């Protein structure tokens, strides 16, 4: 759980990187092939520098990998990082399933006939 918490904090940064529509679009283009930064820049109504900045955010979040080929910089997704991002939603699901179970138990306990509650101690 300590690990989980740290883990969650760290992985939130991945979600930050993914929380921008342009970056998500860049990510999907990079999943289909390995475009160069200049080809990506052609696809958006923004400056080369702006696109480069988006790629840098994705790269720092560990979602894409950049490599140089001649004068070009090629970008591709890191499927492992995406898988980890999915893991976070999975973990969030587990957290909430457990919470819902505890809520359900608590409601059942509250609604149980009184003679069953005497064993529950200090709740009354």
């Amino acid at each position, binding site marked *: *759980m*300590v*690990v989980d*918490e*740290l*883990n969650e*904090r*760290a*992985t*939130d*940064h*991945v*979600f*930050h*990187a*993914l*929380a*921008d529509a342009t970056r*998500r679009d860049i990510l999907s283009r990079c999943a289909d092939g390995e475009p160069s930064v200049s080809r990506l820049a052609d696809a958006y109504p923004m400056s080369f520098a702006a696109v480069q*900045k988006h790629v*840098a*955010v994705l790269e*720092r*979040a*560990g979602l894409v990998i950049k490599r140089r080929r001649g004068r070009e910089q090629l970008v591709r997704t890191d499927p492992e990082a995406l898988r*980890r*991002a*999915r*893991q976070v*939603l*999975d973990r*969030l*699901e587990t957290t*909430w*399933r*457990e*919470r*819902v*179970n*505890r*809520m*359900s138990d*608590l*409601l*059942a306990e*509250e*609604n149980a006939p009184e003679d069953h509650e005497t064993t529950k101690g200090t709740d009354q």
Partner: protein
Amino acid sequence: MSVTSVDKDFEQLTLTLIADFDAPAEQVWRLWEDPRKIERWWGPPTYPATFERHDFKQGGETAYYMTGPEGDKHYGWWKVTAIDPPRSVEITEGFADDEGRPIPEMPASIMRMRLSDHDGGTRMELRSTFDSREQMDQLVEMGMEEGLAGAVGQMDALLTA
């Protein structure tokens, strides 16, 4: 009864969960409203939560911590951004320092909870969204990319451990 459906939207970074309870909406609402009740379900038994402050109204703030087996404490905060008792509430939540103050550079997420009558009981729809575009931009502006890279490195280490 418990969870009846779960939807994960990876693009929207959203988890939607639907649960049905065999209890009236008012009673389910009190699970969120009463700090002593939240403490019974928010944290797992190994990390029980203590809600020190819980102001469950529009603009109200909550401060809590979870205590680990070693006595380690992990602080969090809520802020109620919209509320319509006993039907719906929208809460922004995040990490806090050991005095319960939100850590601004840590990401926050949004919980939306809605209750409706269903089949003689209550249906709870919970939506949790990582909504941090602005915070991300803020992070980049503040030049904290190194922090991000460090955090991701840490994540890698933890995940492969």
